[in-house]
């Protein structure tokens, strides 16, 4: 990473989200929950999702500790998920993972801001932590049904 890449990694939107993460409130009676930790960083994500009658995500809660990338990625994910079905959430997660692994995957704005993290491979797992938590939650939810 060259000197001026720092802004490329920490885009304004990332810094903004990491400073003011959305959806921090814990949701009561969620339809879906999951917890995941990246123990090597000490990062942790707690996720709750509530669905409406048509199966669309109406409310999301996301708490935890983490670095700027973990925080921003989670906050942006929560924003993006609202109004989506679990199937659509799945697709978005897959697309996001594809982008982070360098496949040529256009991902909707503002999530695409996280593409800069690819230049620092060791931080990719920070960007993926919330998404993996989401995957866990969806899998658990489907099994239960």
């Amino acid at each position, binding site marked *: *990473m060259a000197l001026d890449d720092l802004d490329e990694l*920490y885009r304004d939107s990332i810094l903004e989200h990491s400073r003011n993460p959305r959806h921090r409130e814990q949701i009561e009676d969620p339809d879906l929950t999951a917890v995941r930790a990246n123990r090597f960083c*000490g990062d942790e994500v707690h996720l709750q999702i509530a669905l409406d009658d048509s199966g669309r995500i109406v409310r999301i809660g996301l708490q935890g500790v*983490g670095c*700027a990338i973990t925080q921003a990625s989670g906050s942006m994910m929560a924003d993006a998920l609202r109004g989506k079905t679990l199937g659509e959430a799945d697709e978005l997660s897959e697309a996001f993972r594809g982008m982070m692994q360098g496949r040529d995957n256009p991902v909707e704005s503002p999530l695409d801001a996280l593409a800069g993290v690819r230049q*620092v491979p060791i*931080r990719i797992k920070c960007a993926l932590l919330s998404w993996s938590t989401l995957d866990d939650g969806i899998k658990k939810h489907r099994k239960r049904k």
Partner: protein
Amino acid sequence: MTVSREQAPSKHRLDVARIRKDFPILSRKVNGVPLVYLDNAATSQKPRSVIQSLVDYYEGYNSNVHRGVHTLSMEATNAMEEARAKVAAFVNAESPDCIIWTRNTTEAINVVAKGWAMQHVKAGDEIVTTGMEHHSNLVPWQQVARERGAKLRFLPVAADGSLDLSEVDSIISARTRLLTVVQMSNSLGTINPVKELAARARAVGATVLVDGAQSVPHMPVDVQDIDCDFLAFSGHKMLGPTGIGALYARHEVLEQMEPMLVGGEMVLEVTYEDATWNDLPMRFEAGTPNIADAIGLGAAIDYLQALGMDQIRGHEIELTRYALDAFKELEEVDVYGPPDPQARGGVVPFHSASVHAHDVGTVLDRRGVAVRTGHHCTMPLMRTLGVAATARASFYIYNTVEEVDVLVDAMKEALRYFSDGAR
């Protein structure tokens, strides 16, 4: 060995500019700027003489050791045994036979856990350690305690990062079978009073292991002075190659130990049904040893001794004092470990609530500064400190105050960058 230390009086300073020329990697750039390598507690860099010793071996006399009657095999055997004698002299072991080659500190501690403790620790016994141990000096004892029905007890860590010894008389007791303690903490820098602790342990008849992973590379360590039974350390942290470390074991204790690994080279006689073990120390070295890297560790010790361990320690105290002072300027940053540079090694862990340690690591890397971030393999201690992760700068013979300045400036930049509205 004692002689060479005395020859270089401790007021002599290290000629760091000259030393730096011996380390090819230090002229490399990272992200377009000069490398500032402050991750020495994780692993050290290597001088040309150590790298050259590997080249000389592979280009000149590479061969398997022991029992070969041909010239190369004799040369390789002699060189490896000479390296063993150097390691023995370096920690003042009573004999080269008391040095067992291992891959690293972790393996050395496991050799003791499996080969000594599993035989000699009994139900109801206690293993005493501290609250600041590296996982490598904790997890093996959890396993021994569980399997043998023994109890693990901890000397707690005081608020200033030193050991809290107020309860030591009740913690080290007649029930203590083993005291195992880190001499220099990799997470706090704390230097523990291993000699005093060993004396207490011996007074109650306990065996003593010292984790020297951080101390042996950075200060004079003398097993006979400490009066310990075991000392574990890693070559890669003391200018040596990766893949080689050593366990010192007192001769009489070594004779009570079972080998952890069995197979070729460590046996004397084998039938289809049974085997008898070889002499010391071969009994503990199964299979082809890491010949080249053992020789490389010998070359590393030559380099360290030419500088003098007292001089190295003095240099690091200076750097640590300078760094502790510099970090005082940064109000948002907490620095861990004892405030007195004489009471600690050249390890400076720091943390700011406003920037996560990994973000610190990434920003510093842009400035060429290599520090370690995370839990430093001491998760229980981190929990005690109440932080998930710290950044850690750690020094060695080639570091300078100018590099500390680069570190502190880069940390200031990180704080600015992540503070609200900085951009």
